[in-house]
């Protein structure tokens, strides 16, 4: 486990963005031949920025995130994170949160959060202290000894976020993390994530199907086209922070939301 200062020194030389993707193409080999999933995707995410990716189902959002996480190799193109290429999962630079919390059912909440540190054979005292701090951060300080089946869906996803943050990576990737939650919990979790983001200043890439969620959370929304996925719009969200529930009723919010909708409902082919 590197101390925080060292990680930040690592991150500092990144010239333009924390994440820089250029010329990214990907084709899946299937029985029916190659399926072009991503076409010439380029994007830059500045350090500490909150970027949301939206697009029609099957356009390649998860594929893109998998590549950013180093979990899948792209057919062509380059991905830089903190100035260095991503070729394999690197938990020092990138934490990942999936749609399902994917907690290990045989571990307590605390041990789940500590799992990435266990993989690195960090000393037990340090593991526990870090994991406990992360659980506090996501508001689950009193659930440390509970097993996943004793947690609600929202709580599980908080544990998952805590686990993604436990190694203090500069980047956090989230693939529809709240899609399996009910509307109320989802709103609360969005707010919660913004609070965590404000407290940790991570660079966040967040995939969602909810346009409201996209506008509510984002500094910038990237809109993708239907397959093959290309980025067809980069929309800055100039709403002030901290964001509030009331902003959703504003004309500005509606205008931004509508701009995304117009592009997704009639995908440019």
């Amino acid at each position, binding site marked *: 486990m590197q101390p925080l200062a060292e990680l930040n020194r690592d991150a500092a030389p990144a010239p333009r963005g924390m994440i820089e993707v250029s010329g990214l193409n990907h084709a899946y080999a299937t029985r029916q031949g190659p399926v072009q999933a991503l076409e010439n995707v380029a994007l830059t995410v500045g350090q500490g920025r909150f970027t949301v990716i939206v697009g029609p189902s099957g356009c390649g959002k998860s594929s893109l995130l998998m590549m950013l996480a*180093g*979990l899948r190799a792209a057919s062509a193109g380059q991905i830089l994170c903190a100035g260095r290429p991503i070729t394999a999962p690197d938990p020092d630079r990138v934490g*990942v949160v999936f749609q399902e919390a*994917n907690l*290990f*059912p045989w571990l307590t909440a605390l041990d789940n959060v500590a799992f*990435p540190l266990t993989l690195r054979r960090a000393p037990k005292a340090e593991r526990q202290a870090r994991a406990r701090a992360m659980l506090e951060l996501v508001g689950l300080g009193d659930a440390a000894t509970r*097993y996943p089946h004793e947690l609600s869906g929202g709580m599980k996803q908080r544990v998952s976020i805590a686990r993604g943050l436990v190694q203090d990576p500069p980047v956090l990737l989230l693939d529809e993390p709240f899609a399996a939650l009910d509307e109320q919990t989802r709103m609360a979790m969005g707010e919660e994530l913004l609070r965590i983001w404000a407290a940790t200043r991570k660079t966040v890439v967040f995939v969602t199907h909810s346009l409201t969620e996209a506008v509510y959370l984002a500094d910038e929304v990237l809109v993708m086209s239907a397959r093959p996925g290309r980025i067809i719009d980069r929309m800055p969200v100039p709403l002030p922070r901290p964001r509030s529930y009331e902003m959703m009723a504003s004309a500005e919010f509606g205008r931004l939301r509508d701009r995304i909708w117009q592009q997704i409902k009639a995908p440019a082919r």
Partner: protein
Amino acid sequence: MSPGRIRALIILAVLVLWEALPRSGLVPVLFLPPLSLTLAVLAADWPTFAAALGVTLSEVAVALVFAVGGGLLTGALVGGLAGPRRLLLPVFSSLYAVPLVVLYPVMTAWFGIGAESKIAFASVYGFFPTMLATAAGIRTIDPQLLLTARSMGATPAQRLLLVILPAAIPTVLSGLRLGGALVIVGVVVAEMLIASAGIGYLVTFARTVLDSPRVFAGVLLVLLIAIGFDLAMRWVERRCALWSTAGRPQSAPAAAVPT
């Protein structure tokens, strides 16, 4: 009344009937000797019974090591690697339905009528369910858990030790339970068929001379072995699978016990 108390009452009732039925003359003593008589025979000839128990237990213990060790190892291979799986699983699955007891005479020809043939037969007998359960347990692991572990930088060895094995434990345990029970069945059946020692041998011998108290004394000992195994398994299950009790739905192999 709690299920536990009902269970205790049922057992008590069986024991009382075991004593009362033959004593009252409702059941001939030759069919069912009273419990007290059975226990008396057991006590009077304890050295013989103890020696037989020792033989049977040691055969069970060695066969368990082979069946469980081989079953876990092969199951992990077959479940984890696509090549061996395609090659072996269909063969194993069909073999599982074969009444393996037909092999026993062959084994006595190979290994003699001593402990070796019992161990060989019971090992093969218990091997299949353990192997199939382990393979199923490893194959049904949520791939998302492995993906998550990979995203956290887990090496292949770490994924095996820290994700695949713990995730497979509930299924493997149910396979162990079935495999272990079959090992006990296998040893006793083998002793009853062709043997010169062990509880099964004692029971068969007593039966041929119509000495039913000794037959039932042997049955009682087999019962004790089975109960002992069950208690041991419960202890292991409690220790290993805290989470499985209320966690994900368990996928136990829904295979019938071949005879």
